[in-house]
Each structure stands twice: as C-alpha cells, then as structure tokens.
C-alpha cells in the first residue's frame, strides 16, 4: 500500500496550496480549544508484523543522513540480540523481541511534541509537514528535550566539546522537500513502512485490523498516545511486548505543564497586591503602636506631672503653714524674749543702783593687777 511518488507529490502540492491560500477551516471555537494538528501532515505507518529485521532501514538512514559508520556492519544481524536505542549517529534502530517479532524505533514525530514544548529556545519545532525539526544554531544544550521525550529518542553528542548537539530522526524533511520518500521507507523490502498523510494512514491501519482481527491487536499505537504521533504502529502482539510503553496516556505534553504555567501570570498579578497589602498592614500596625506608645508616654508624663504638682502644692502648703507657724513662733518667741528682756532690764536697773560703788573699786584693782 505504499504511496507512489506521483501521488505523494500531488498531496504535498495540495498541502502547500491549502496553507498558502489560507482556506483552512477553523478547527476550534473561541474557548475550550481543541487542536487537531497540522492538516494533511505526513506520517509513516509501521506494520510490525511485516518487519523481518533486515536492518536495511538502519543502513539507508545512516547513508541518507551521512552519519558515522557503526563498528559492526549493517548486515551483521547478531546486533539484533541486544536491545538498542537511538544514539548520537543512530537515528533509527530495529529491535528483536520474543517470538521473532521486530519493531523499528525512531522519533515518532508527535502531534504535540514534548521536546518542542520543553525547549526554551524554540530549537525544536513541529513543522507543518508533520516532522519535528531541530535547529542546531539555537540549541543551548540543556537537554531538557531528552528529559521530556516519553519515547527516549533524542540523543546528545556528549563527546563534542565545542559544538555538541541533539540528534534525532528528521523524518527526512530535506528529502521530502525534494519530493523523495524518507530513506527508511524508500528502502524497506517488505513494505513494513508506509508513507502518507496521517489521516489516510490511520484509515489504512484500521482497515488492516478490521480485515484480519485475528492477526492484529485492536489498537493503532500512536493514534492517541501522548496526544497522537505522526508515526503509527500496528502489531500482532501487545505493544508492551515489542518494547513500546502502553502506560503513556493520551494527554499531550503541553497540557501536562499547562497548569503550572498557568499559575505563573496569576502569581505575578496577585503577589504584588498581597505582599504590598501585608506590608501596608504591618506598617500601619507599627504606626499605631508608635502612636499608642506616644499616648501612653504622654499619659504617664501627665499623671506624673499632676502628681508632682499636687505634691508640690501640698509641700508648699505645708511649708507655708510651717513658715507661718515658725513666724508666729518666732514672733512669740521674740515677744517673750522682749518681755523677758524688759523684765530683766527692770530688775537690773534696781540692782545697778546697789552695786555701782563696788564696781568702781573692782575696776581699779583690775588695772593695778594688769600693770604687775
């Protein structure tokens, strides 16, 4: 069912025409947005039941992308005994599983790529062709895309000191632009890989399952996983058994971070309001406390002054009283003394008359003694 080149070119033309004319229908309303991915984007359907593990796709990928030659040649099928993942110069690997099942692994070109959502410099983007493309010139090398990728696909050239980069399948976008098929699809001898529009591939996949329900598991891997991928898989055994995780869920990567990202602007919007409010309250409390303190001090001072004044008054009163008493006493005393003196003087006057003669004699004697 591989799409012929002419058919492919025709559909590419339609896709480009549709984009340029802008005649695309609006797929979502104003709110509760739902995104269906780029219309007419391409993908690859991998029918794992047809894969024989010949490693031709690995070789073609290596040549098309001009990657380093591996240590062991591509026709060495013993390599398949080990579980491998994509690496610095390996964009795709085929792994062998129990029951002689094979599955090819490469970038799944998610409809909502986790890597692109994680990239903080837009080095990874979802092209309208369906390919997830990487721009080395922007990449800082934080490797968050590798953390984010649920399929563990991107690799990093850790040993390059100056120009390390992320490496992964490009869906052969340069070849697509030349009107060629991706290298792996082109070479596959068993038609295990089908290139085409994703929407068409989904129909093909389900038709195969519908026609041979005993042969296929009733699931198209990639239809909904992580919001859908442009590479789709059908298998005869549960996907878990051919190394594909079935616990990834259907939530697209950007939706998983949307909640946390959504709180960011609200924090910016409300934190200054709340914090300034708290500041104003604490400032006001401080002011009130200061005023209360001043009032308290004033009160204390007033009471103290009053008390002191009262005391002073009392003291003054007491003092005045005492003074008056003292004065009275003094006056009394003085009067008494005066009276006494007057009495004494009276008595003395009567005495003086008797003793005057004696007094003269005494004085003479005294003078005579002094001369001796």
């Amino acid at each position, binding site marked *: 069912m591989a799409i012929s080149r002419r058919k492919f070119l025709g559909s590419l033309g339609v896709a480009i025409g549709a984009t340029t004319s802008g005649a695309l229908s609006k797929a979502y309303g104003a709110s509760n947005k739902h995104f269906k991915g780029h219309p007419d984007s391409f993908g690859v359907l991998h029918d794992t039941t047809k894969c024989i593990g010949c490693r031709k796709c690995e070789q073609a990928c290596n040549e098309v992308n001009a990657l380093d030659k591996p240590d062991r040649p591509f026709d060495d099928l013993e390599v398949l005994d080990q579980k491998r993942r994509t690496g610095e110069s390996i964009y795709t690997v085929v792994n062998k599983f129990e029951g002689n099942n094979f599955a090819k692994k490469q970038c799944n070109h998610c409809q909502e790529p986790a890597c692109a959502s994680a990239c903080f410099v837009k080095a990874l983007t979802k092209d309208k062709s369906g390919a997830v493309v990487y721009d080395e010139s922007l990449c800082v090398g934080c490797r968050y895309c590798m953390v984010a990728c649920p399929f563990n696909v991107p690799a*990093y050239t850790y040993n390059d000191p100056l120009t390390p980069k992320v490496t992964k399948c490009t869906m052969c976008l340069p070849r697509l632009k030349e009107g060629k098929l991706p290298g792996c699809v082109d070479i596959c001898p068993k038609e295990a890989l089908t290139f085409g529009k994703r929407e068409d591939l989904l129909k093909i996949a389900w038709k195969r399952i519908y026609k041979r329900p005993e042969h296929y598991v009733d699931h198209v891997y990639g239809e909904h996983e992580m919001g859908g991928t442009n590479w789709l898989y059908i298998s005869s055994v549960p996907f878990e058994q051919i190394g594909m995780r079935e616990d990834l869920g259907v939530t697209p990567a950007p939706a*998983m971070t949307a909640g946390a990202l959504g709180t960011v602007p609200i924090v910016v919007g409300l*934190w*200054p309001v709340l914090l300034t409010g708290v500041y104003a309250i604490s400032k006001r409390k401080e002011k009130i406390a200061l005023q209360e303190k001043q009032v308290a001090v004033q009160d204390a001072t007033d009471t103290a002054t009053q008390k002191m004044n009262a005391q002073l008054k009392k003291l003054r009163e007491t003092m005045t009283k005492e003074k008056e008493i003292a004065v009275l006493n003094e006056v009394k005393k003085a009067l008494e003394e005066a009276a006494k003196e007057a009495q004494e003087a009276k008595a003395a006057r009567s005495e003086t008359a008797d003793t005057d003669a004696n007094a003269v004699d005494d004085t003479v004697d005294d003078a005579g003694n002094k001369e001796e």
Partner: protein
Amino acid sequence: MAQEQTIAQKQYLTPFNVVAGMIIIVGLVLTILRFTKGIGAVTNLDNNNPWGLWIGFDLLCGVSLAAGGYVTSSACYIFGLKKYHSAVRPAILTAFLGYALVVFALNYDVGRPWKLPYPIFYSQGTSSLLFEVGLCVFLYLTVLFVEFTPAAFEWLGFRKIRNWVLRLTLVLTIFGVVLSTLHQSSLGALFLIAPSKLHPLWYSGYLHVYFFISSMFAGMSMVIFEGTLAHRWLHDKMDDTHLAEANGVVLGFGKAASFIMMGYFGIKIIGIAVDNNWHYLTTGLGLWFFVELIVFVLFPAILYSVGSREKKTLLIRIAAVWTILGIILNRLNVSLIAFNWHLPSADRYFPSFMEIGTTIFIITLGVVAYKFVVTRMPILYEHPEYKEDH
C-alpha cells in the same frame, strides 16, 4: 622584616586556605577537561540520563538552599518582623552567591554555555517551564545583586548611591518574593512533562507547590545553619546587635520552619490521596519515600518544635542541618533517584568522580567568596557611619 614575612605566610597557610586551594586547583583541571574534551569525558551522563548531579544538586539544591534570601528579607521588610534585621544581609549575600554559583555551574552542564542568554534575548521558548526558570533566575540574580550592593557601597564609601539603592528595598523585596515563588515552583514543574519517567510517588500535579513550600523551610534552615557556621568561625566580625538578635532569629525561624514543614507533610499526604498512590508505599521506592517524608521532614519538624518550645538553640541547629539534608534528598530523588525508575539498573545513572569533584569545587568557590566578602564588608555588623538609619 623577616619576622613580618613569616607572619604573613602563616596567615596565608591556614588549614582552610590550603584545603580550599587544593580543591580549586583540582577544579580548574576538571574545568579544562570539561571544555576541551567535552561533557562526555568528565560525566556519566548518557542519552537515557541527560541530567545528572550538576542539575540535581548544583541547580535544584543550589536554588532551594539559596531561598534564605527571599524568606528573610520578606520577613523583615514586608511582614515587619524587625527583629530579623541583622539576619537579612548575611541571607542576601548567601542567596546572591548561591544563585551566582548556580549560573556558573550551568556553564559546565549545558552543551554550549555561550548561548545561555539566547532564551532570554534571542529566541524565547515561552511554552517551556525551563524558560520560566531561566528568566526568573536571571532577573532574581539581578535583584539580589542590587540588594547586596549597599554593603559594598558602605565598604567603598559611596554614601549617595547607597542611600538611593536602599530606597528601593521594598520594591526589590516584593520582586524577589514574586520571582522566587515562580522559579522555585517551576523547578519542580520541570518534571511535570515526564510523568512516564518519574515515579508516581514523586510525580504529582502539585510538584510545583511542593518545591515552593519546601524552599521556604530550606531557606530558613540554611539561614540557621549558616549563622551557626558564622558564629563558630567569624564571631569577631559580628557586632552587638547581631549577637543579641541571633538567638531570636534561630528561635523564630525554627518555630516557623517547624510549622511550614508540618503543612508540607500534610500536602504530601494529600498528593498521595489525590492520585490514589497508596499501593506504591509498600514497594521498595515506597519505603524510600517514607524515609524522605518521615525521617527527613516529620522528624526534623518535631526536633524544631522541641527546640523552639524549650528554647534550646542547639536542638534547632541540629534540626536545621537535618532539614537541609532532607531537602537535598528530596531534590535528588525527584531528579535522579526516582527519575527513570523503570529503567533496568544497568541503564541507571551514578555520578562520576569528576562530576562530584566539580560540584565540590563550586561549593568551595562559594565558601571562599562568602569569607572574602564577610571579612571586608559590613555584613555581620552595621557600618558605624550608617548605624542611625534603618
């Protein structure tokens, strides 16, 4: 003359300087290796484990342990707890150095460090939480630098510009809290994009809330711990105000940390209940989760409470160290230990000696820078000429 030289030599050859010097020499060798042979030559990172110790410890732990800056400055300037004033400058300095070293360490980890300004100035990947982290760390580093400058200006004697910067204190503090809230939480939210890789007990829709709340008590514990070290080694640099307020800071932060940790414990349990992850608790990693939550959150919270009730600062200081270890454990669990938990053990990551060496080198740079600043600028004491105004 000869005597003076020997004295000078003696001062340079202190045990601290010798050890620090040796670590820095090793660090420089590792730096040369990193930038000539590539990341692959010095680290155990591989395609399954793109983030290692340099992100798990240097970035995640570095940022959360530098949270003391926003916690202390907001307590003092926004919530009006003036008794923490003497703790603000050391906390700001630690935060500034912490963030500066986080950015410095990132230069080792990313592939092309000279492009680090790209996300901010050239090509903004606004859908990424890492963009949010990068922008906030860049802005917050700037804020912390400005908040730190008054100490440097006092040291240099630039009174006018110092007073001008001080007038921005409130705005800078609020900016600091906004930016810290955002990037502390976003560091946790980085892992929201990888539910298939992080163990369900650690993966939660509340991951960003957990990171933010735990950064608060991480910051407080760091302030207490750093104060303990400073008291031991830099006692002579402290003025009476600092010494008098130090115990109050320890008791107050211990009490606050204890309460926040209890709240954190509660929301961690809520996280398990919301996602119905109870059955994981009986597995091996479930036990490990218990260790993190009970031994390194609940226990230090109780230790803090006893310390602050009994007014025993020694207990609080022990609880602070314990809490810091718990924060480190939590960040390493999220980024390394519980990350890629489904991978076979052969594909798991363990840091190389050179990675650990580089991390130790960067921590040493921080300690040396702290010592350099504290012994010269008015951090642990108030500049006598500027005492009257605050």
